[in-house]
């Protein structure tokens, strides 16, 4: 079945493009340490808010040359009371492929120094400019993507088992248990989800390590989403629980939990796959929204949402539009997931033509 789905995806024009785009994104994120010219925490305070580096291939004599860049100089313009950035044309910094740069641990394990491309150690290569702390936006985009693009998936893997089991038990047992369980789920759904999200996030104590925080955000995202899913599962369970194969399982003495897990829940597989692919984007969006508000992933860790936090001050983004790049990446990733989700739904659930 899995291969079938993949083939169908490849046939669809939009889905193919989406798959390729996501493939590139995940590939880049996996090799982020190597592709990024700087590490996540590399910062040069004298370079705060410098614009994207200009790369020249034609030198001042009009001749073709190896690609090089100039550093920016930050000067204070006393007349207009603002900081101006000028190219420091006194020294050329050539780009180098596979050269030694900032040391890092590849995938957190193998110590390495080589980067895909970098420049000499006193040159600064900021492809997408720098943020307030003089950190390379391009590198941070890659590291931030690691968090933004995985957190949604992880939340789903926490949420779906909970929802399945909850809905399964509620639907199969029926009666008072069902009534109580469903009232509780409805109550959770009655709180506007984003309100619940920010409140849960605000409860998190400060001073956690970034890994603890990451895990807790995953759990919070899952806590907000399980109720709606459990309700749908319950409905599906109700429709199959009196069929013969369930009665057969009961008659040979299978335990209740066994029947739910082994016989009833597998009936919901294709729905689960469709629901999962369609909800990845909403979790990516939730995380970015949360981090945008400063309640999600915290500095100095990067995520696409918290990188956009600086864009809250619009004086900031008007003169520094490169700070908006994470937003476009979120947009592209979500769009790609949506296109794939739509196609998977068409394949697995042909009756339901596009939502």
């Amino acid at each position, binding site marked *: 079945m899995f291969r079938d789905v993949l083939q169908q995806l490849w046939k669809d024009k*939009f889905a193919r493009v989406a798959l390729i785009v996501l493939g590139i994104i995940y590939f880049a994120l996996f090799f982020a340490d190597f592709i990024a010219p700087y590490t996540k925490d590399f910062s040069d305070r004298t370079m705060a808010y410098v614009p994207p580096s200009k790369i020249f291939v034609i030198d001042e004599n009009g001749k073709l040359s190896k690609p090089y860049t100039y550093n920016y100089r930050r000067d204070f313009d006393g007349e207009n009371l603002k900081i101006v950035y000028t190219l420091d044309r006194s020294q050329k910094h050539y780009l180098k492929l596979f050269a030694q740069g900032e040391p890092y641990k590849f995938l957190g394990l193998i110590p390495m120094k080589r980067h895909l491309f970098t420049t000499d150690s006193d040159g600064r290569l900021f492809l997408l400019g720098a943020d307030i702390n003089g950190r390379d936006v391009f590198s941070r985009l890659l590291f931030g993507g690691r968090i933004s693009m995985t957190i949604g998936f992880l939340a789903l893997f926490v949420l779906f088992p909970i929802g399945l089991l909850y809905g399964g038990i509620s639907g199969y047992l029926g009666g008072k248990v069902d009534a109580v369980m469903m*009232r*509780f789920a*409805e*109550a*959770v*759904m*009655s*709180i*506007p*989800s*984003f*309100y619940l999200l*920010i*409140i*849960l996030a*605000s*409860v998190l*104590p400060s001073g956690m390590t970034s890994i603890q925080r990451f895990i807790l955000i995953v759990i919070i995202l899952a806590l907000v989403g399980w109720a709606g899913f459990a309700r749908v599962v319950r409905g599906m369970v109700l429709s199959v629980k009196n069929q013969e194969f369930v009665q057969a399982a009961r008659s040979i003495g299978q335990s209740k939990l066994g029947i739910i897990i082994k016989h009833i829940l597998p009936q919901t597989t294709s729905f689960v796959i469709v629901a999962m692919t369609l909800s990845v*984007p909403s979790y990516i*969006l939730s995380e*970015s*929204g949360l981090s*945008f*508000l*400063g*309640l999600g992933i915290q500095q100095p860790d990067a995520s696409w949402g918290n990188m*956009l936090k600086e*864009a*809250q001050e*619009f004086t900031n*983004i*008007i003169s520094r539009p490169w700070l*908006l790049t994470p*937003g476009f990446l*979120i*947009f*592209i990733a*979500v*769009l790609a997931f*949506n*296109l794939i989700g*739509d196609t998977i739904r068409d394949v697995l659930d042909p009756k*339901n*033509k*596009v*939502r």
Partner: protein
Amino acid sequence: MQIFLYILKRILQSIPLLIIVSIISFFIIRLSPVDPLAELKLNPSVSKETLQKETERLGLDKPIIVQYGKWAKSFVQGDLGVTSNGEQVSVKLKERIPNTLLLAVIVIFLTWVVGVPLGVAAALKWKSPLDRVLTVLTSIGMAIPSFFFAVLLLIFAVKTGWFPIGGLTSSNFAEMTFGRKILDLAHHLVLPVTVLFTISLAGLQRQMRANLLDVLDSDYVKFAKAKGLSEFKVVYKHALRNAINPMITLLGFEFAGLLSGAALTEYVFQYPGLGRLILEAVLRSDINLVMASLMMGAIMLILGNLIADILLIITDPRIRVKGGAS
């Protein structure tokens, strides 16, 4: 008469729901290690007496169950306590809720007026270029993060100067004539409405398209066509009425989505709504305010669903019969 009984039943049903909501929210908030009065204590303009009154009202020195009981009692009596600035929470809510409702109602109205016809058009011209273009556009609409879109529009507003930057009213609002006031409000609403409209339009259009496609595929529509009824009559008299019913159920969900989506949009545009209120309250850990706005959010959501259900009874006679029987 039956309808009224049904409504009454639904309202009674939502009371236990609200109680559970309040218990959940109360315990989540109390889980936090933050002292609920910390902010209040730091505020020099808040008197010792107010502090003492708040401590007693919340029963902070007692176990959590007692605290909840105290909170619930004063909530039912309409006493929501004071914010960390020493303002009355109820006053604050009264000021903010209408604004959020205004935003939500305008957005829902616009999405329906635009989304339903677009959905119908896409379904009737299934797999035509128009349908494809609409599918692509709605995919885009669904993929833009609301806050990012809001930020982009803010830049646009600053660069062109065509729209005010944030807020709901101009500074000289109080001196304006009635007509000018309306215009001023509308001017401020354009951008937030645009953001929320774009995002909810996409979902609505898709749903409408899918429903109509489903209905057009059903036997009775095929029969009507075979009988020789005109295309127009088949679609608008038979198919559309049935395709629209599930949309009304969706109205409740849409309202819920708007409450959530509006929070970020309100925050970016500095729009004085419930969403921004709760956000700011959370960021300042202003417990009374958070608790009260959570409850208001839940009440609004339940009311929204209730209204959708009532509308459904009016439009769908089948439910009237079933609802009466059960």
